[in-house]
């Protein structure tokens, strides 16, 4: 429990950014092998976007989603530890 409190900010950043980065690579790989980004743009929208831009934005969006998930896990893990520590001083 004590260890949880002493996780540094840098450590928190890395433990959120790094696993979510790895999962975003997997997610983009699976997603874009099934869907061509050109087919995903609605017909009524006139968007001219290069394939590299489409894949990059897709990857960054996946990364963002995974960051939210990782951050949620970290947040609850830390705050639950604090609660437990308060109830059992």
């Amino acid at each position: 429990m004590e260890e949880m409190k002493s996780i540094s900010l840098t450590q928190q950043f890395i433990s959120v950014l790094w696993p979510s980065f790895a999962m975003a690579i997997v997610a983009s790989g699976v997603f874009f092998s099934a869907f061509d980004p050109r087919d995903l743009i609605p017909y009524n929208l006139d968007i001219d976007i290069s394939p590299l831009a489409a894949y990059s934005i897709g990857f960054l969006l996946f990364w963002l989603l995974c960051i939210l998930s990782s951050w949620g896990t970290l947040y609850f893990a830390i705050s639950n530890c604090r609660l437990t520590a308060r109830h059992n001083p």
Partner: protein
Amino acid sequence: MAQQAEVPLQSLYEAHKKIYPREIGGRFTRLRMLSVVVLLGIYYIMPLVQWDGRQAILFDLPARKFYLFGLTLWPQDFIYLAALLILAGLSLFFFTALIGRVWCGYACPQTVWTEAYLWMERKIEGKRGSRMKLDKAPMSGAKFRTKLLKHTVWIAFSLWTGFTFVAYFTPIRELGNNLVTLSLGPWETFWILFYGFATYGNAGFMREQVCKYMCPYARFQSAMFDADTLIVAYHPERGEPRGSRRRGVEPQSVGLGDCIDCNVCVQVCPTGIDIRDGLQYECIACSACIDACDEIMDKMNYPRGLVRYTTENSAEGKKQHIVRPRILVYATILLTLCGLLLTNLAQRIPLDLDVIRDRNSLYRETRDGLIENVYTLKILNMDDQSHRYELRAEGIDGLRLQLDEPDIRVAAGSVAELVARIQADELNLEDRSVEVRFYLQALDANHLSVVEEARFVGPGRL
């Protein structure tokens, strides 16, 4: 996030001491350097290699194709890439069980790039002692120039690394042209900087901390270890009690073991551990300490191997087994998967047919009173030659197949779309919806044939 502000700030993961690995020569160091040069060479040279008039390895994003020498993989072949990754993972298991963490010590990109950055650092800042002195010294003109030179060289190398990375996705000639004419796209620039920055940070600063705190393999590799796995270990029975003595002194005569406690094994360690404390998860089995100790043993005229490659069993004088159930199980799974992948790849038919039924109308009646369904066919010719095809349909007695364009030609590596109509007599329909099969056969290559099923919808029996 407010709670996080209370957390005391500290260095990366612990009160981190910068590690200054001492330079070292020796047989394992030469082997590691060879591995570094070969692997980095492959990474930087591969995008320049041409194959059949195009880049040998290229993830062509706009065309959604992956070129791997003579092989062209399409998104449909993603399964092969996934299988390849699973195979890589399994071989890591197999080799870890057999020879320990050789991956970490000799082949992991983190090790390889760290060695390269360390080499540049040594060339510019000097040996271990000078580097430590330089870091301790107050900032001066000379220190600033040395540091500036090191970071300039590091950043230049990082940018080259990032450029090479992007060259696996954008053909390197095009990318080089864009770079020279300063017309790189925003995303190409972003990824060059992103990958370059990651390399700069990981190989220049994070180094062993990546192995210690960020690498999942370092955490679970112990699950693959057993008493017969090759490890780097110190021989305590021979070495202890350690202590310094003059050269040429027989250890027994002064009541000491062979270890002269010179600490060179600690100084050369890139993760900063003392191998004499036993097997530790921080040890990446780079064997720098073996070379270091052998050199000292040679100087002292003691036999080599106070720190050596061994296994737990052989260190304890027990019988050593190379073939054991764990190895057999890993090998069997590995070989089976390898075989499956290769057979599948060899039998892969570079032709695919997608049939999409027209969703706007269920069916229509023709002037001759037949029931008609309309389909859109997508033909993917994944071969590197163009072909002509014949299309047939079966499934209903006396069905008629009509094509807008009866001569079906698809160029190499492209997709053709065509509209097909199937007409059938209502009396021959057994149900509201029956199965029909489309047979596509290349006219000039027998093995290129595929079957695709579709539904034919009619009014149903009254």
